């Protein structure tokens, strides 16, 4: 199975390494060459330098053959646009897009995108942790 990870920052690089370890054929894409460092010295996957909005870059990453794509650059709107292009133009069965803004993540999720919102996750984990570790305050009636 082939996966392309667009945006190789803290999140993207970890996802790329995780997929490779799970036996996927992985190509990572990042605008910045230095992002390769995050993948570590023993990186066995592919790496393409360039912007995910650029068709030639996507095609160098052999995007058309991908079974899955993870879009995690540092821009919500860039991710949303690239994610839609991957769905509509390349017909990739699984496209997952990182969106920090909960409202935009929901807006596009309703319209059929697989959006992942780390902000939303952080909010629920924080709330849950506080609830679990602190006795429920008594509510004056």
């Amino acid at each position, binding site marked *: 199975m082939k996966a392309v990870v667009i945006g190789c920052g803290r999140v993207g690089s970890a996802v790329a390494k995780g997929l490779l370890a799970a036996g996927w054929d992985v190509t990572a894409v990042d605008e910045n060459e230095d992002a390769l460092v995050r993948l570590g010295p023993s990186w066995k996957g592919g790496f393409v330098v360039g912007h995910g*909005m*650029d068709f030639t870059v996507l095609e160098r990453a052999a995007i058309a053959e991908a079974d899955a794509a993870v879009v995690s650059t540092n821009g919500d*709107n860039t991710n949303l*646009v690239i994610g839609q*292009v991957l769905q*509509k133009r390349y017909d990739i069965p699984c496209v997952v897009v990182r969106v920090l803004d909960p*409202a*935009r993540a929901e807006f596009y999720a309703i*319209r059929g995108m697989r959006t992942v919102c780390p902000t939303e996750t952080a909010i629920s984990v924080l709330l849950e942790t506080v609830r679990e570790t602190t006795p429920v305050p008594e509510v004056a009636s």
Partner: protein
Amino acid sequence: MYVVVAGGGKVGANSTRTLLEMGHEVTLVEQRPDRFARLEEEFGPVVMRGDATEISVLERAGIARPPELLLAVTGDDEDNLVISQIGKEGYGVPKAIARVNDPRNQPHFDLLGITQTVCATTSILGLVEHEVPEHGLVELLTLQREGLAIVEVQIESHSPAVGTRVAGLSLPKGSRLISVFRHGRTELVEPGTVMRPGDQVLAVVPHGAGMDLRRVLLGARK
């Protein structure tokens, strides 16, 4: 008419000024504090500070009314695309015009259904082509939604169409010759109009059929 303008650079600020002068109601959204301060000095409460790609900001700008027109004219193509999509798909804005900063992003706008776009680079290059007659076929206007283009073709002495009546030309499907400019005058094309060297022909063609039209009128490209 109510208009929301996203992005207060040169395009957004000048559009806002003109729309206000025309008597329209406008809200201009600008994110950068320095720009916002300058715009607020000129436009007062018409300007709102915020990131127009955030749904709550757009809502404060009145996107839910909805405006008759949304101009997504920031300096960032992804932002313009997302603003247009939120306006059209989320709030039923009837007309959104998006600015394309980098012409290489045009296919993304087309693919994602944002059909009304303006790209300064493409417009300037179109004008350049218009000034180079030997190019043969010049695209004057693209009608994205209709899937048509208005083109101009310069007939040369060796063109295969010379001496042929328009009714006898096998034009590409869906295309039509509109007018001929010759000897300083424009004539509407009739079935009996005969093509002559030096004619400047205006035609309407479906997208992608420009080169077929060129072949019929001017022959294969040298």
